[in-house]
């Protein structure tokens, strides 16, 4: 099964600053903009990249969920492409 929307949300978290900022304030509303299953939403809420990978997401996109984790928000990774 395609996980295009799940992957797209993760892509936007890194590449689209407004998606990132909105996600910090209301991640549920951002998730509602994408066609996600309940299982996909739970994996996103968990913040665990390993759970996203189990759903078929590309491993590097999985790591993008860490941008919402307080301890990773200042990680140098977001300043490099």
């Amino acid at each position, binding site marked *: 099964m395609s996980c295009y929307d799940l992957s797209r949300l993760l892509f936007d978290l890194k*590449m689209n600053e407004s998606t990132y900022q909105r996600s910090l304030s209301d991640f549920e509303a951002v998730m509602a903009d994408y066609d996600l299953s309940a299982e996909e939403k739970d994996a996103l809420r968990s913040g665990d990249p390993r759970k996203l990978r189990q759903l078929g997401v590309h491993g590097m996109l999985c790591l993008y969920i860490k941008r919402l984790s307080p301890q990773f928000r200042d990680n*140098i990774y977001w300043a490099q492409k």
Partner: protein
Amino acid sequence: MPLVSALCASHAPNILLEPGREWDDFMDLHYSMAPSGTARRPTFEQQKKLRQDAEAAFAALRADLEQAKPDVLIVVANDQFVNFFWNNIPTFFVTTADEVKGQFTRHKFHYKNHKELGKAIVRAGMERGIDFSYGEHIELQHTQTVPLYFLLPKPTIPILPVYVNTWVDPAPSPRRCYQVGELIRAAADQSSERVAILATGGLSHFPGSPHIGEIDESFDHQLLDVMRQGKGKSLVDYSVQDLLQAGDTEFLNWMVVVGAIGDAKATYTGYMPDFVATGWGFVSWKLV
């Protein structure tokens, strides 16, 4: 003119990150995929030594590049979700922009793009059965900027970014990448300018995988041995799966250069596993 210089180099971000906090950030993020992984976290002193060793390898490549006096540098690399997503994944893409830009942390990059050579390659491909995608806007990312920081820090000549999809499944075969290299070589032969080519990426690494931190040094050394012997064409028999198992899918970028240089023997090879994620590899072929 024939190609005047061919190079391959890793583009691992931590080559250009500063030892210390930036390396720690890099490791923290990647190891969130494998918290109990096999990481052997290098000390600050080891990080500095790796950076010095990489700088020495890049200096060797840069000396060869500058000695060849190229008019243009083709840069063969893979996109990593900066320019391409699943709405459209090009297998091979040639940049036909006027200029290209990018940024890596505090470092900014801005080069003229050799669109005439780009279009010549696209047209040659169409005549010979290789139909490239092409486009007039791309953003450079670490897959190009990390090696360019060391090899072409000032935009004294135009570059020509060429993309190979090594990043998402399905990816092209090593044989097809070799054929693309042969085609680029033929286009260079038709050019009146001195053309150099650089492939980036690899060697063994498993980004975004529970295997992060594992480095198949044995496989990497096999690849480097083959290039020293000038027997790169033998690598076309590898499958993508062979490369995937060794964490070496970005070697598909290198296969383009291998196809471009034919049976020339590598005149310089360097290799250093970074103990974090990647076997850093460096190769040069002096062609003139």
